[in-house]
């Protein structure tokens, strides 16, 4: 009894103390301020993230709509009569899987080559103080600055009538046409002049500048040669950065329309079929082909672009860890 009597005020007192503590903690301006900014930050980020994902969601819902849903004003986001019709049409009309295989081949080849070459050149520019380094570096920066469209015509000419100092024409009596083969992209990748390669070289250079020199020096002291050090020490530690470069170049090559439409007009590529669009497609039972601006034409284009980016999304889901990590360690600072 007495224990209980003395206990209650104690508990009340403790409770008061606790609530006082809580008050102290939560009713401070500092806390309110932080809460306010936290909420604002999440609202903003979620809103903008929605803005980024929204086109993808629209495409997704749009691609399942049947032609009736498209003209039905009450159907907005959820298709009433979901159908695979769009996918089937697109895959049949563009011979999708052939295009997928070709695109994958070209993107993978140029991604891998550009990754290796840009890593090498970046390493050379970051670690060695040879004469003329400044000049080479200036050239790299210039290749970023000059839009490829400026020299597009002569590039086209060069690969249409390919020749190395007249050697080839001396041997075979004529120039070689390299269009519609892997060669233009392979050559451009090997010499580091592919799509945005200057940027990759710059990123790799900044990355290598941030790696401590002592690593290599220790290897040299242990008697490892220059190239062995590069292959056994440098490449393994820069793997996440290299994967970043690979993702960039793979996916930019995948969605590239500039080089694709220039070099591969006869080879089936996803980007070229998407660029051509679905104008003039004769559907079963229709008397006229599809016109530009019709809902169905736009829907088919949406479905196609969704199919084009689907492999990239899968790649990104697996590799985004490396992308974020690689960028965090790059220190692209001037």
């Amino acid at each position: 009894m007495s224990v209980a009597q003395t206990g209650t005020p104690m508990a009340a007192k403790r409770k008061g103390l606790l609530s006082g503590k809580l008050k102290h903690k939560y009713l401070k301006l500092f806390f309110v301020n932080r809460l306010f900014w936290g909420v604002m930050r999440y609202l903003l980020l979620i809103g903008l993230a929605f803005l980024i994902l929204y086109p993808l969601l629209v495409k997704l819902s749009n691609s399942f709509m049947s032609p009736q849903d498209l003209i039905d004003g009450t159907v907005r986001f959820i298709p009433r009569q979901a159908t695979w019709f769009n996918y089937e049409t697109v895959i049949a009309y563009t011979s999708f899987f052939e295009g997928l295989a070709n695109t994958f081949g070209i993107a993978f080849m140029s991604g891998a080559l550009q990754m290796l070459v840009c890593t090498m050149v970046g390493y050379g520019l970051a670690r060695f103080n040879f004469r003329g380094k400044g000049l080479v570096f200036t050239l790299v920066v210039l290749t970023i600055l000059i839009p490829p469209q400026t020299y597009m015509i002569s590039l086209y000419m060069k690969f249409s009538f390919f020749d190395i100092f007249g050697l080839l024409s001396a041997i075979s009596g004529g120039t070689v046409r390299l269009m519609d083969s892997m060669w233009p992209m392979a050559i451009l990748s090997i010499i580091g002049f592919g799509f945005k390669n200057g940027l990759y070289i710059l990123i790799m250079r900044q990355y290598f500048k941030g790696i401590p020199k002592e690593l290599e020096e220790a290897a040299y002291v242990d008697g490892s040669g220059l190239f062995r050090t590069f292959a056994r020490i440098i490449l393994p530690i820069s793997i996440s950065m290299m994967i970043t470069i690979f993702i960039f170049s793979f996916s930019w090559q995948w969605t590239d329309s500039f080089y694709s439409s220039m070099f591969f007009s006869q080879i089936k590529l996803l980007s070229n079929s998407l660029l051509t669009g679905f104008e003039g497609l004769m559907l079963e039972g229709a008397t006229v082909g599809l016109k530009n601006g019709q809902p169905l034409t736009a829907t088919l284009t949406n479905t196609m672009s969704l199919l084009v980016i689907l492999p990239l999304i899968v790649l990104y889901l697996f590799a985004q860890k490396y992308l974020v990590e690689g960028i965090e360690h790059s220190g692209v600072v001037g």
Partner: protein
Amino acid sequence: MSKWSAALGRKKLMNLTVTQKRDLMGWVFVSPFVLGFLLLFLGIFIDSFRFSFMEVNVLQQGGYSAKFIGMDNFHQILRVDPYFNRQLYNAVQNMLFDIPIIVMYSLFIAVLLNQKMKGRAVFRAIFFVPVILATGIIDKADLSNSIMNAYQSIPGLDTGIAVVNESAGGMFSNLQLKRYMFQMFDFSPALVNVTVGAAENIYDVVNHSGVQILIFLAGLQAISSSIYESAKIEGCSGWESFWKITFPLISPLILVNIIYSIIDSFTGSKNQVMDRITAAMKLGQYGAASAMAWVYFLIAAVFLIVIGLFVSRFVFYQNKE
């Protein structure tokens, strides 16, 4: 004679220190780029420049003929062609309009994504999605896609009316917004246009600032946290430490991003001049297309240099090497 010079060369090589010899190996590493430039690209650049003064015809049996015609190509595109000047002007105007918005937005987002919070990894993953997806052909296909345009206009979202050939609705709402801003806040017309334009272009801005956010984020990570800690101990608020610490230290990257955005805007897929050059090339007007490309490059270069020099005056370098 040659023996003598070879011997001299060997002697010279032997006189070098180990480090100097190793430095010479740097040429091996950069050799793909240098060889490619010398063997292939030097010729391509020179050719492209020459073509702009020539009439080029591709021959049926292979090869091409080129005839020197002086400044005719330039005269044709700049004085005779009714559209090219206008397209150039539009390209420059779009660029000047977009760059400040893109750079400010990406810096803001990068600062947000750099803060500690729950779900940061998810947000980062989402904000880098445009780097992968909103490039090249996807961007181009969405631009001319009536359904995407209809869904992306803001009033369509609010009213829930499915309109496919719309955009009239979008115009109306923006007009209302503009009138409202005139009446309520007494803004100047230029400011109103910029603000409304920015809101209209929000998709563009979000989708074209992925790389810039990446670059800014990398730079923010490189700022040592001890600077912020000491500033906090001295009683610096978040606002102050942004303007006094983050902003100066990130300013080299602002320059980098401005330059990157200018190039991106000049070579981007929504750019009419680029389409024009491609179209001219497809029609076989190689000379005129080369001339256009060089005029365009010169204008882009002038803007790059002027803006670059102007901005670099305000850039702060922590350790001058």
